[in-house]
C-alpha cells in the first residue's frame, strides 16, 4: 500500500534579488511527502533548505521570486492568495523554527500564544482554546501545564520552549509538521527529548514530518526518507538505508565522512569537506559540487547532472557511475 501523497513540489525554484545580484536559493526541486512519513532534508548551512520550506507556505521575504508548483492535497499553494494560505498555515501545516529563544513572543504568556492559532483557525472561545492549549502542553510533556500557561517564554528553559513551539505547531492538528532544524539551538541532552516528541507526533497523531537538519545522527534516528540538498538542488534522495549504506552521491559520502567517529579512542583528525559551499549568487556551472568533488569527471563542469533513478526509491544526481569510497581519506 502506497500512502497518499500529501505534499508535492515540482520544479520549485526560489530566487532572491539583492543589490542587483540574483541568489539562487532553491533550484528546480522535486519533493514528495506521503501521509505519516518523516522526510529529512540534509545539507550544509546555506544550501537552501529553509527557504525551500518557507516558500511552500508563502513565507519568503518580499524580494524573493518563487516558481514551480507546490501542491498540498491537490491544492496549488504557490501564488495562492494570502487568505487561502492562512487557512493552510497552522491548520494543515505546522512550522517549528530553529531557535526557540526567538520564535516565541517575549511579551505574551505561553497560554495566549498557544491559544492564538486555535482562536484564529477553530474560532474557539477563550476558555475552550485555553483548555485545548493545556492539553497540548500536557501532550508535549510539560509539567504543571496550568501554571505554565500564564508564564512567559523567559521563564522556561530552551528545551521547554522548543516543546512549547512544537505544541504551537501541533495545536490545530496539522497533517504536516515542518521542523526547521528544531534541535540545532539546543543542548545535546535536550535534543533527544525534542526528537522523541517529533516521533510521538508521528506515531500518535499520524502527522507527516519534514525535518530539516544537518545532523545525520538525527536522521538515522527518525527519518524514513532523506533528501540531500546541495547548493539549492536535491542531489540524492532515498530511504535512510539507501543514504547510509548505499549512497551514490559523492556529496552524501563527504557529509557522512565528516561525522567524527567517537568510538575511536585514537585522536583522529576531523574530516572536513574540501573547499567551501558555493556562493548561491555564483553557483559553479555544471554540477555545483564539482569543484569539491574527488570523483570529478570532465563533463561535470559542462552540464547539470539530472536526478536519475538508482532503484525504485533511490535516485541521485551525479555523472559518476562507479563505486564510491575514495573520498574517505582519514576514515578508510
Amino acid at each position: 500500500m502506497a500512502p497518499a501523497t500529501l505534499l508535492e513540489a515540482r520544479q520549485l525554484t526560489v530566487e532572491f534579488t539583492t543589490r542587483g545580484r540574483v541568489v539562487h536559493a532553491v533550484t528546480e526541486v522535486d519533493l514528495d511527502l506521503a501521509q505519516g512519513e518523516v522526510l529529512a532534508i540534509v545539507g550544509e548551512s546555506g544550501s537552501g533548505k529553509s527557504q525551500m520550506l518557507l516558500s511552500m507556505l508563502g513565507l519568503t521575504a518580499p524580494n524573493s521570486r518563487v516558481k514551480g508548483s507546490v501542491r498540498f492535497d491537490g491544492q496549488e499553494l504557490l501564488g495562492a492568495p494570502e487568505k487561502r494560505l492562512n487557512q493552510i498555515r497552522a491548520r494543515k501545516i505546522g512550522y517549528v523554527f530553529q531557535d526557540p529563544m526567538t520564535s516565541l513572543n517575549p511579551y505574551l504568556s505561553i497560554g495566549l500564544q498557544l491559544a492564538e492559532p486555535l482562536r484564529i483557525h477553530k474560532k474557539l472561545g477563550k476558555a475552550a482554546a485555553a483548555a485545548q492549549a493545556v492539553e497540548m502542553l500536557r501532550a508535549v510533556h510539560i509539567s504543571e501545564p496550568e501554571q505554565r500557561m500564564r508564564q512567559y517564554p523567559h521563564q522556561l528553559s530552551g528545551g521547554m520552549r522548543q516543546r512549547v513551539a512544537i505544541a504551537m505547531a501541533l495545536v490545530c492538528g496539522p497533517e504536516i509538521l515542518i521542523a526547521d532544524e528544531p534541535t540545532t539551538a539546543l543542548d545535546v541532552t535536550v535534543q533527544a527529548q525534542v526528537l522523541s516528541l517529533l516521533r510521538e507526533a508521528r506515531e500518535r497523531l499520524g502527522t507527516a514530518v519534514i525535518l530539516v537538519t544537518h545532523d545525520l545522527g538525527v536522521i538515522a534516528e527518525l527519518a524514513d526518507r532523506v533528501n540531500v540538498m546541495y547548493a539549492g538542488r536535491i542531489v540524492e534522495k532515498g530511504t535512510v538505508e539507501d543514504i547510509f549504506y548505499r549512497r551514490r552521491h559523492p556529496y552524501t559520502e563527504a557529509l557522512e565522512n565528516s561525522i567524527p567517529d567517537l568510538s575511536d579512542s585514537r585522536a583522529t583528525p576531523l574530516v572536513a569537506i574540501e573547499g567551501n559551499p558555493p556562493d548561491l549568487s555564483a553557483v559553479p556551472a555544471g554540477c555545483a559540487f564539482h569543484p569539491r568533488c574527488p570523483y570529478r569527471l570532465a563533463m561535470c563542469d559542462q552540464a547539470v547532472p539530472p536526478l536519475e533513478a538508482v532503484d525504485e526509491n533511490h535516485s541521485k544526481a551525479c555523472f559518476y557511475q562507479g563505486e564510491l569510497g575514495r573520498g574517505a581519506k582519514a576514515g578508510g
Partner: protein
Amino acid sequence: MTREPRGVIATEAEAPLAAAPGRSLWQDAFARLRHNRAAMASAIVLIVIVVAAIVVPWISPYNYYTPQWALLDLPPTLRGWHIFGTDDLGRDLLVRVMWGCRISLMIGAVASVVSVGIGVFWGAVAGYVGGVVDSLMMRVVDILYSVPFIPFVIVLIVMFGRNLFLIFVAIGAVSWLDIARIVRGQTLSLRNKEFVEAARASGVRGPQIVWRHLIPNLVGIVVIYATLTAPAVILFEAFLSFLGLGVQAPMTSLGVLVSDGAGELQSFPYLLIIPAVFLAAIVYCLNFLGDGLRDALDPKDR
C-alpha cells in the same frame, strides 16, 4: 472582574478552569502595577488633583475671572476661604490653580493620546509593511517635521481664530512625529524576529500581527516616551501662552500662572510657589507612573 491573589496556586479541582483564560498582557501588567508603591502613590495623587480640578471650580463661590478690588494680593488666609490667597486682581488663586490644572492636564492628556495613537499606528504600519508604503509614510513625517512650529501655530490662529481646541490640535499634530519614528525603527528590528515569522506561519493575519505581536513589544518604549511627552507638552503650552499664542486671559493654565507668579516672586512668593508645586506634582507623578507602567509591562521584570 475576579482575580485571585498572586502566589495562590489553584487547587486541583479548579485548576483547568483557573488556568483557562491566559491573562492578557494588560491584566498581568495591572496586577504587577498594583504592587508598585511609588506608581500607585503617584496614581492616587494624580487622581486627587484631577478630581479637585473638576470639583473645586464647580462648588467654589468664586470664579476665575471676576476681580475683587478690595482683596488684591491677599496671602493665603481662611478669611473668605481664600486658602491659596488671591492674585493681583483679587481673583481667588485656588480656583485659578484648579482651572490651570484642568487646562494643563487636558492638553497633556490630549497631546499624549493623539501622539501615541497616531504615532504608534503610523510607525508600526510603516515599519511592518515596509517598502514603498514605508517610504511614503515616513516622507509625510519628514514634511511635517520640517514645518516650523511657531509660524504654523500663528497661521492656524490667523485662519481659525483663537481657541483652545486649536492649540490641542496644533500640539497633537506635531508631537506624534517623534513616536512614529521611534516606533518605526523598533518595528523594523522586530519584524524580522522569528516570532513574527512564527505568527505568520501559524496563519495570523497582518493587522493582527501588528496588534498582538508587535505593539506589545513596543509598549515599553512608547510608555516612556508618552510620559516624557505629557510634561513637555504642558510646559510647551506655557511657552505658547507666554507668547500670547496659548490660552488667553482671563483663562489660565499652570504655565501661565507660573510665569505670572514669577514676576511677583519678591513680594508675593505664594503666587509662584503654589502653581509651581502643582505643576511639579503633576509632572513628577506622570513620570513615576510611566516608569511603573513600563516595568509592569515588561514580563521579564517582575
